């Protein structure tokens, strides 16, 4: 091959990916870089945004315990949501996988169906059921005399975790489902023939093999929950702010864009570190199952 042809051959992949690359740079990298830069700008009630390079916003986040509390709440909610989806979603996927043909496709549709409905609508559903004195469930239970005051759900962390888990469940089920598809259909019979009971089979044979599925589902659910906006905004409101709702308020209510940008940047960096780190850990730990 001539040098010119070789050069052309080396350039071809770049040329072919150029449109996608340009889109990627234009709508993702540049706005991201601008957000990061914005977080170093100054802001004042009357002077607005000043394009200077100062650490004021970052210092505020680092020193004011309000932000520490807010970030801690964000990740606490994300962790609890992840645990809840794993605890419910993994058995759900396992049971689903054992169902026979027609029931399997029906229940798969039931699980995936909610993905077709807007997150806002699904979360408002929870508000309709448990929203204070007018919530359907609360009304019913109070009229039956089962409870005296409405179940505290709105503006509580519990409520946010429950609603988020509901929204995120399909991702966990799908992820575990994919791992279950890789199982040898005879593997449970093999373990049984060697003398293992049902509990041992699940604990020693099934669990270790679907663990990568649970963990990759956990990464998806965790990162989506930590950056979720609609559900925390509706259930948590202004009282229980998380990183996403705080950034939104800084941008649109206080108009302190630089501070909002700093919050958003910190959330992004923390999430990337957590996701990349745990992904590397999982891949090393479960190398044999992934092969």
């Amino acid at each position, binding site marked *: 091959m001539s040098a010119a042809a070789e050069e052309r051959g080396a350039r071809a992949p770049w040329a072919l990916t150029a449109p996608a690359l340009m889109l990627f740079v234009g709508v993702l990298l540049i706005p991201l870089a601008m957000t990061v830069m914005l977080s170093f700008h100054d802001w004042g009630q009357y002077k607005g945004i000043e394009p200077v390079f100062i650490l004021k916003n970052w210092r505020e986040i680092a020193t004011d315990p309000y932000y520490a509390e807010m970030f801690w709440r964000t990740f606490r909610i994300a962790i609890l949501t992840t645990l809840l989806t794993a605890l419910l979603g993994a058995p759900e996927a396992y049971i689903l996988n054992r169902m026979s043909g027609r029931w399997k496709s029906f229940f798969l549709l039931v699980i995936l169906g909610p993905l077709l409905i807007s997150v806002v609508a699904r979360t408002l559903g929870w508000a309709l059921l448990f929203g204070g004195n007018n919530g359907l469930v609360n009304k019913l239970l109070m009229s039956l005399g089962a409870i005296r005051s409405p179940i505290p759900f709105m503006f509580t962390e519990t409520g946010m975790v429950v609603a988020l888990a509901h929204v995120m469940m399909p991702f966990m089920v799908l992820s575990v489902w994919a791992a279950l598809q890789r199982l040898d259909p005879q593997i449970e019979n093999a373990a049984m023939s060697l*003398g293992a009971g049902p509990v041992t089979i699940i604990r020693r044979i099934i669990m270790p093999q679907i663990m990568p599925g649970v963990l990759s589902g956990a990464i998806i659910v965790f990162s989506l929950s930590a950056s979720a906006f609609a559900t925390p905004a509706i259930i948590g409101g202004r009282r229980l702010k998380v990183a996403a709702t705080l950034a939104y308020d800084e941008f649109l209510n206080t108009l302190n864009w630089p501070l909002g940008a700093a919050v958003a940047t910190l959330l992004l960096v923390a999430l990337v570190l957590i996701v990349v780190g745990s992904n590397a850990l999982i891949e090393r730990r479960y190398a044999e199952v992934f092969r």
Partner: protein
Amino acid sequence: MAFLELDRVAKQFGATTVVDDFSLAVGKGEFISFLGPSGCGKTTTLQMIAGFLDPTSGAIRLEDKDLTAIHPAKRGLGIVFQSYALFPHMTAAENVAFGLEMRNVPRNERGERVRSALAMVGLAGYEDRHPRRMSGGQQQRVALARALVIKPSVLLLDEPLSNLDAKLREEMQIELRQIQRTIGTTTILVTHDQNEAMSLSDRIVVMSQGKIEQIGTPQETYERPASAFVSQFLGKTNDFAGTIDRTVAPGQLVAGSWSAPAPAGVSGPVTVSIRPERIGFGDAGLSAKIVTRIFQGNHWLFQCDSECGPAIVIRQNDGKAQPAEGEAVRLAWRPEDMSVRARAGA
């Protein structure tokens, strides 16, 4: 007394009968093959012995105890699956040790038995390998070691060699037979490969459409097939239409221009089955024309057009001159080499 006994076992899925009236007595230490095309019910029968399926009717007894009443985990049978079904998250040694762990075998003894089981299948030194890092043949050996290490009363093999290439399969056949002879475990092999069944087993159970066609030694089933299905399934065969004439004592069997004294029993229209390697070219007999002649190294294969329909003849390549394509020949065989059955529908 039979060691393992299946007594009129049947299995139905809804309205379809998959296994019907299956009765078999297996002696201790015997190597039995269930042979048949896919969907003949052989795997279903194996799964009923293993306990993964319950028979619709009939009884399965092991040493006179009702096996169907025992949970599959407590039956103590060793099973090798077609897909091997190894535990991918465990090493070879951990796979083999699993059954011993379930039996609460002490750690030292466990290690000892795992090592000797892996050594027996030729995998000494592979203890710490994970199954996905092993070749198909090696995985197969781990599966065999895992099934044998628990000292099973019966070893069940579900098409264990079908995922291996031809050469490896032949090697494993020999090895499997040697291991089975050495440790003397009663073994049941499910296969659709007639060569595998014949080279491995003491007796073959030929199955078709859920029913037993014939039970016999490999030689019996090959030489004296009990039905047209058996003779067709086990190797190549020629079926000629003939008649037995009882008007002349002691009776005459006629197929085309070939004739012989009639065997006792059947009379009227019959089917004469004769293996291609038992037919010779002679001066008298069925007249035929050779259509194609194929040289296959140690033997010649002739496809002939005879007066009783197409015929195949196999002749040993013994250096003698063989008839050419298009040549007219006479096909003859010894009466004791054929099997004669009443012709159905005639």
